[in-house]
């Protein structure tokens, strides 16, 4: 089971609303390489990992990804704080506002809702880990695009943190992938 800790993994304190970045940053939550997909993907895959190391790694990274869902959601809420419907409309968030108000909902930067096709679970740990490595790299690329789109340190710092976590997760998955590839010949 999971137990909640009343803190974020990395501090978020965005003092100025920024509707442009609010729209883009939603992909970190609900995009194909977003944090919701990551948390769900690794969580369900942990059930078919063949040894102790795999089970531990997948569940621990899945848990950390839930903390990233929380960071992105917090950033979105702070980025839209005090925004009027008129302002949201002018930044192409009118459709989002119609459906979700200023609530947190998983969509990508172009407004496409989250779908289970973003996650994979094949029952083959080597194949799943190859999927996970690709997912981490895609998430890294997506954070790099977001970093390119802002120069506000309040937004940049958490994005840089999240990007580096993708690098670390990729390395852990890769190590396990290579080990399983030799060990299980799958």
């Amino acid at each position, binding site marked *: 089971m999971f*137990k*909640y*800790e*009343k*803190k*974020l*993994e*990395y*501090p*978020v*304190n965005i003092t100025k609303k920024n509707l442009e970045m609010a729209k883009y940053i939603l992909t970190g939550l609900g995009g194909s390489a977003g944090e919701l997909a990551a948390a769900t993907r690794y969580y369900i895959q942990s059930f078919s990992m063949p040894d*102790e*190391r795999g089970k*531990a*790694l997948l569940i*621990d*990274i899945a848990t*950390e990804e839930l903390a990233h869902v*929380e960071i992105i*959601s*917090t950033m979105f*809420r*702070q980025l839209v704080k005090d925004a009027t419907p008129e302002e949201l409309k002018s930044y192409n968030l009118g459709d989002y506002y119609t459906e979700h108000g200023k609530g947190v909902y998983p969509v990508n930067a172009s407004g496409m809702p989250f779908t289970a096709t973003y996650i994979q679970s094949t029952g083959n740990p080597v194949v799943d880990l190859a999927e996970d490595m690709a997912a981490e790299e895609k998430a890294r690329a997506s954070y*790099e695009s977001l*970093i390119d789109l802002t120069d506000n*340190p*309040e937004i*940049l*710092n958490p994005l*840089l*943190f*999240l*990007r*580096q*976590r993708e*690098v*670390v*997760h990729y*390395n*852990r998955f890769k*190590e*396990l992938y290579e080990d399983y590839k030799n060990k299980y010949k799958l």
Partner: protein
Amino acid sequence: MLFDNGFDVDLYMKNISNLKNNDYLYNNDNSNKIVSDKIGLQKGNMFKDEYLSYKGISPDIIEAKTEKDALMLKIYETCFAITDLGLYLDLHPNDSYMYEVYQNYVSNFEKCKDMFEKNYGPINNTFVDSSNYEWIKNPWPWDKDGGTKYV
């Protein structure tokens, strides 16, 4: 600053920041592989060789503005060290040096968390050292003052 229960947070922070020089854990040959928990949280990584900067952009150093935030920041830092070293240990459970460093951070995390909860309220819902049920109290982490105000 001295808490009403006699815990001197300044002295505690000083001891923790001196850890790198004093503690035998950091005089080990393996110690040059990892950074402090403070740098770790700032960069998102405890392992020196693993850090990959993007276009040379450096994340800012995270500084606490109040005593409450200083204690919360220490919780963030130690918690991060536990998360990152934990992923490494998942794949290298027999690395005794890294496990000692991990245990050290767990112990510091527990101490800071305990101190924070006694003075400012629960971080886990198992903290019950009060006459009232305080778990529901604002701020929550996504609120403006949710223990994340110090950046």
